């Protein structure tokens, strides 16, 4: 009604413009205030504590400004090793997840909805299970007298029990298992959005199934794969539990180092500085990805 009427209602609107504007602002603020409590909690739990750590990372024992905590990271070899290990574990875990996750997501995406729902449970069940439980399960499976060692010896892959856990191998196996759903779910989402007609068109134009896959399907699934890989990589960077248990003290990642510094030296400055660097690395990775891959569209699914 108020759209029609031209001048007349236009004048009316002009008369009420001030009141209308005031009411709109009031409504916007009322709405915004609904997000207030959540914002308060996030500020209390994330912004103030992390900000405080940021401050602590620049303060020495006497309360003076210092860059010592950051200088230590460059000077001491153990820090460099920690960063290299963290990067190595994160990268390898991401690569393993891509190699294993792509065929699985592809398989799930090909299935009719009725079946994919059932097989999807294989991805969702581990996702919903406590990571402590899964880490414990791998500890059992990978130990010297575990099933995997027995099986390997039984079929003659190796003669004596090999060390599968409390080292890098165990850490990577456990982490890949825990991270896989984070790759498969966005990748599956991206694959489901691919228009099947594209594949028909490729086939119709004479492409073999293999060629059609690599030239049409794969490029279209890339945004989902990039989004999933990023989530995995970023989560790996700050991961604590699995490397601590399955690494058996041999795989020192940044998170492990932070806890060790706090437990052994009670040095808040060093621990904070390490945490700040970790956060910085995470933000840089996400920022670069957002720039190059239009990440928000892939992550938050603007459909």
């Amino acid at each position, binding site marked *: 009604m108020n759209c029609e009427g031209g001048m007349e209602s236009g004048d009316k609107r002009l008369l009420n413009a001030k009141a209308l504007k005031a009411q709109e602002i009031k409504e916007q603020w009322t709405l*915004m205030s609904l*997000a207030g409590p959540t914002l308060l909690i996030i500020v209390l739990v994330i912004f103030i504590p992390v900000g405080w750590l940021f401050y602590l990372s620049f303060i020495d024992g006497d309360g003076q400004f210092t860059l010592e905590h950051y200088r230590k990271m460059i000077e001491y070899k153990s820090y460099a090793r920690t960063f290299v290990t963290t990067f190595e574990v994160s990268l390898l875990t991401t690569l393993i997840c891509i190699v294993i996750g792509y065929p699985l997501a592809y*398989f799930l995406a090909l299935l009719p909805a009725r079946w994919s729902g059932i097989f999807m449970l294989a991805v969702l*069940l581990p996702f919903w299970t406590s990571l402590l*439980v899964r880490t414990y399960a791998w500890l059992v499976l990978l130990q010297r007298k575990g099933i995997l060692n027995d099986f390997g010896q039984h079929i003659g892959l190796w003669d004596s029990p090999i060390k599968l856990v409390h080292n890098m191998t165990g850490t990577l196996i456990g982490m890949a298992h825990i991270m896989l759903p984070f790759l498969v779910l966005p990748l599956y989402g991206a694959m489901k959005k691919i228009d099947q007609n594209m594949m028909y068109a490729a086939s119709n134009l004479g492409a073999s199934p293999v060629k059609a896959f690599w030239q049409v399907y794969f490029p279209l699934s890339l945004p989902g794969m990039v989004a999933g890989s990023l989530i995995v990589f970023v989560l790996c960077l700050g991961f604590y539990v699995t490397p601590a248990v399955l690494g058996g003290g041999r795989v020192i990642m940044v998170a492990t180092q932070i*806890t060790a510094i706090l437990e052994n030296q009670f040095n808040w400055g060093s621990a904070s500085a390490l945490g700040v660097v970790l956060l910085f690395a995470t933000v840089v990775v996400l920022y670069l990805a957002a720039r190059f891959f239009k990440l928000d569209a892939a992550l938050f699914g603007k459909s």
Partner: protein
Amino acid sequence: MSWWTSPASDTQVTHGARFWLYVVAAIIMLLLVIPTFIVIPMSFSDSQYLEFPPSNWSVRWYDEYFGSSKWMRATVTSLQLGVLTMLLATPLGTMAAYALFVSRHKVTKVIFMLLITPLIVPVILIAIGVFYAFGRVGLNNSIPGLVIAHTAMATPLVMIVITAALRSYDLNQERVARSLGATRLKAFFTITLPQIKFSVITSALLSFLTSFDEVIIAIFVSGGSNATLTKRMFSALRDFIDPTIAAISTIMVLVSTILLLATQAIGSKGKKS
């Protein structure tokens, strides 16, 4: 024509040509699921050591778990935290998601990004930060402190689930109700909420599980008589392997399986209605 030579799609692919994919996918799915279920037979072993398959069966680790006041107390703490987090995170997250979705203000995008930072900031950093800040105000080792911290971790997930639900819901229905005289509050509760209720339930289950399974913040912030189940499990895993963990793990797998199947059932119901 057998299944092997029958076409798998309309692009010259047969099931036979794709058979390798089925095999690979089956192996991967088994590798995903087996570790989750391996704890069940382990928990009925009679042995002190991690042997598989167990040579003798018993329920002694369940006796151990249910008979230990330490484990029982930790379980009660974790359940309490899970329920309180769920009761806090679900309404708060829903309110925030609704507000940011409906409002057309320019800052909504910025606020949304601020509210999902718990998903971006490494949890270890949140954990030590909260440990430090809570230490200053005496909230460490307390239930309220842990509930606040876990709520911050769960709310972003609630927001993402509810925002996705609101996207597929036609907001004009609420406008109709309001133009017919309903207040915004009434329109929300009588028109919008019933239509997104399955997503609200899913997000509630998700926030319960987020708190119940949370390890790292609990390691730092919980302690003493308020230590959570996950904190006790973690130290038991790191120091020496107590087979009681197999019994606890079995119960946890059971809980998450039930919750997952519940959300799946809710999801299919939600699609139908």
